[in-house]
């Protein structure tokens, strides 16, 4: 029995110790009924960087509206760690909805998690606000009226970079996508659009997720005599590829074109990344007064420059707050009505939430990684900006007119 007592004490001690850490303490508000926003985000595991970005944005947003709140009510964020696993994501989301009574879910990192959680939202009658998820299906085949996508989707990113390449002197492209849904979908979208622009795809390959040695792919790409290589590789894989391609001197011969050009990659790869181009959903270097202010506030709070999903999530939260204010209530149906066909003045430019598939129409960016002595790592330099109408697909499809 003494052993069992010990076990109990040990477990209780462990729980107590974690509860005691102030960073994890949940804010409790005395009265007024806070507006609760649930974030079932990947905070641990291989995709933690995306969940952490969402959380950082939410932390800044809470700080910015402190005192004001929304409709005079305080805003409470409830974070849950999904570890990037869809089964856990659904369980956590269900807990947020049924136990904590949140009416808004956001911060979901992976497409697989988003597809699983979003599919449950009509049943739960809560709004799913995507600020990270790229899967085209979310606003096409899998769409429902409780789903809103504030961010640029995968096909929209591919569209922006294709528009840029269409005008470039480059003619021949190799497409390299990780062998899973996102990698294959991205390569598919890119291939369709680049062939429509009368350019050639001279080779395609799908390395498995977690590839550590890209030598054979690098040889193939070199042999193909392509002008550019389109890369849809997730975080770490992209880092490894770029470093190896740099060592082989490939980056000078064949221009790397990233599906998304993230700060996270630029920090990890460093100078070897300079010269790579790609699309960006939110480049922090956008020169608008609103964005300059935001970057400064963000840097003051977190000590780093905002990455793509920091910006996109912040914009989502700000827009959601604006819509709730407009509706005058946090009632889900009223908020949906208020959001449809509404406009928002985002960090990088104007946003419009079209009613037909709840995809936010917004600017598309083609960027290049450049060195700037003012920053400790390469930064995205904007090469071209495309208006929302040109980079947003036809309603409820993944196709462009």
């Amino acid at each position: 029995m003494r052993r069992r007592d010990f076990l109990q004490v040990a477990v209780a001690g462990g729980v107590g110790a974690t509860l005691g850490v102030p960073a994890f303490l949940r804010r409790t508000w005395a009265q007024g009924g806070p507006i609760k926003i649930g974030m079932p985000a990947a905070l641990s595991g291989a995709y933690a960087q995306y969940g952490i970005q969402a959380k950082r944005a939410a932390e800044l947003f809470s700080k910015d509206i402190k005192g004001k709140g929304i409709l005079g009510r305080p805003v409470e964020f409830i974070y849950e760690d999904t570890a990037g696993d869809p089964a856990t994501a659904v369980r956590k989301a269900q807990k947020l909805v049924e136990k904590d009574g949140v009416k808004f879910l956001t911060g979901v990192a992976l497409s697989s998690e988003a597809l699983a959680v979003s599919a449950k939202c009509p049943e739960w009658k809560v709004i799913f606000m995507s600020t990270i998820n790229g899967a085209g299906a979310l606003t096409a085949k899998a769409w429902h009226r409780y789903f809103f996508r504030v961010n640029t989707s995968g096909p929209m990113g591919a569209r922006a970079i294709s528009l840029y390449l269409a005008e470039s002197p480059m003619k021949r492209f190799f497409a390299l996508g990780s062998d899973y849904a996102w990698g294959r979908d991205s390569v598919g979208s890119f291939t369709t659009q680049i062939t429509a622009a009368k350019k050639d795809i001279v080779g395609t390959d799908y390395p498995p997720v977690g590839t550590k040695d890209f030598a054979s792919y690098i040889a193939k790409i070199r042999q193909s005599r392509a002008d550019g290589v389109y890369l849809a590789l997730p975080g770490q894989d992209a880092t490894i590829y770029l470093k190896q391609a740099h060592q082989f001197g490939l980056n000078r011969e064949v221009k790397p074109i990233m599906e998304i050009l993230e700060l996270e990659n630029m920090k990890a790869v460093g100078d070897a990344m300079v010269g790579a181009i790609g699309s960006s959903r939110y480049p922090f270097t956008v020169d608008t007064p609103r964005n300059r202010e935001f970057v400064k506030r963000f840097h003051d709070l977190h000590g780093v420059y905002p990455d793509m999903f920091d910006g996109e999530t912040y914009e989502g939260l700000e827009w959601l707050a604006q819509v709730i204010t407009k509706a005058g209530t946090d009632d889900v149906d009223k908020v949906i009505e208020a959001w449809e066909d509404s406009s928002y003045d985002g960090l990088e430019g104007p946003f419009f939430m079209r009613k037909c598939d709840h995809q936010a129409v917004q600017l598309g960016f083609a960027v290049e990684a450049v060195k700037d002595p003012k920053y400790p790592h390469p930064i995205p330099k904007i090469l071209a900006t495309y208006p929302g109408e040109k980079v947003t697909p036809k309603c409820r499809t993944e196709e462009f007119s």
Partner: protein
Amino acid sequence: MTRSRVLGLAALVALVVMPWVLARHQLSLLTDLLIFGLFAMSLDLIMGYTGMVSFGHAAYFGLGAYASALVLLDFAQPVPVALLAGALLAGVVALPVGWFSTRATGIYFAMLTLAFAQLLYTVAYKWRDVTGGSDGIAGVPKTALFWGGPGLASPQAFYFLVAACVVLSLVLSLAVVGSPFGRALQAIRENERRFTSLGRDPRPFKLVVFVLAAVFAGLAGALFAPFRGFASPEVMFWVFSGQGLMMVIIGGIGTLVGPILGAMVFILIQEVLSSYTEHWMIFTGAVFVLIVIFLPGGLVGTARRLGARG
């Protein structure tokens, strides 16, 4: 025997009254716990009663989940049809896998089951036309109980379906391990060589129990898909097989009821701690280590030992 019967009856009554006692989210959580409990229980059939440690049990849970998801989504059949399909598919696939794997014992058996499970995982991951690849299949509906019958969309209705499946599976499994067939399994566990020297071939016994365990795991998976609304390759990954082993060990190997409780404890710890810290896995690991060291028979094994002592 009477004491365990009283406990069993009490548990049954508790299961029946739960929907009126628990809040909505607690009932959802309990449904989840029961589904994973069934999975852990099925693993205990081969692990606890036959001494075969499988590192690939998640594959059968996953097969059940995919079969059920496809039946519900593409053919809109009642839930029990999906359950049957899930259990059947798991059993059918387990037959050749078991036939090969049971040729080996110990660590080689574990490695073979792991290899087959990873193979099946890769199929689920790559066969995008059918399984949706890494995105999985989302939006699986909870259809009716039978054609034109009552719907199962309410949390209470689905809870009762899950509870009934788990109780029936447990009763059936208890009957199996208590039968002469079950005794033979335990004889194999205790001393396979002696079993052979008595003139019996252990392999058919092992194969049958392996398939049976897969069928129950498939049933758990088939319940999971409509409950959670999706199926994805993660439920077939080796990590989930490993978690199954932890659930069985926490609850008590070779007790059938224990692994159900073990699964509940395992998920509850994860559920509570992960709300507070992203380092919850450290605590799950610590609890596991403590249980292995201080409660060698797991929760149920220890409780029985204490009970026997008076």
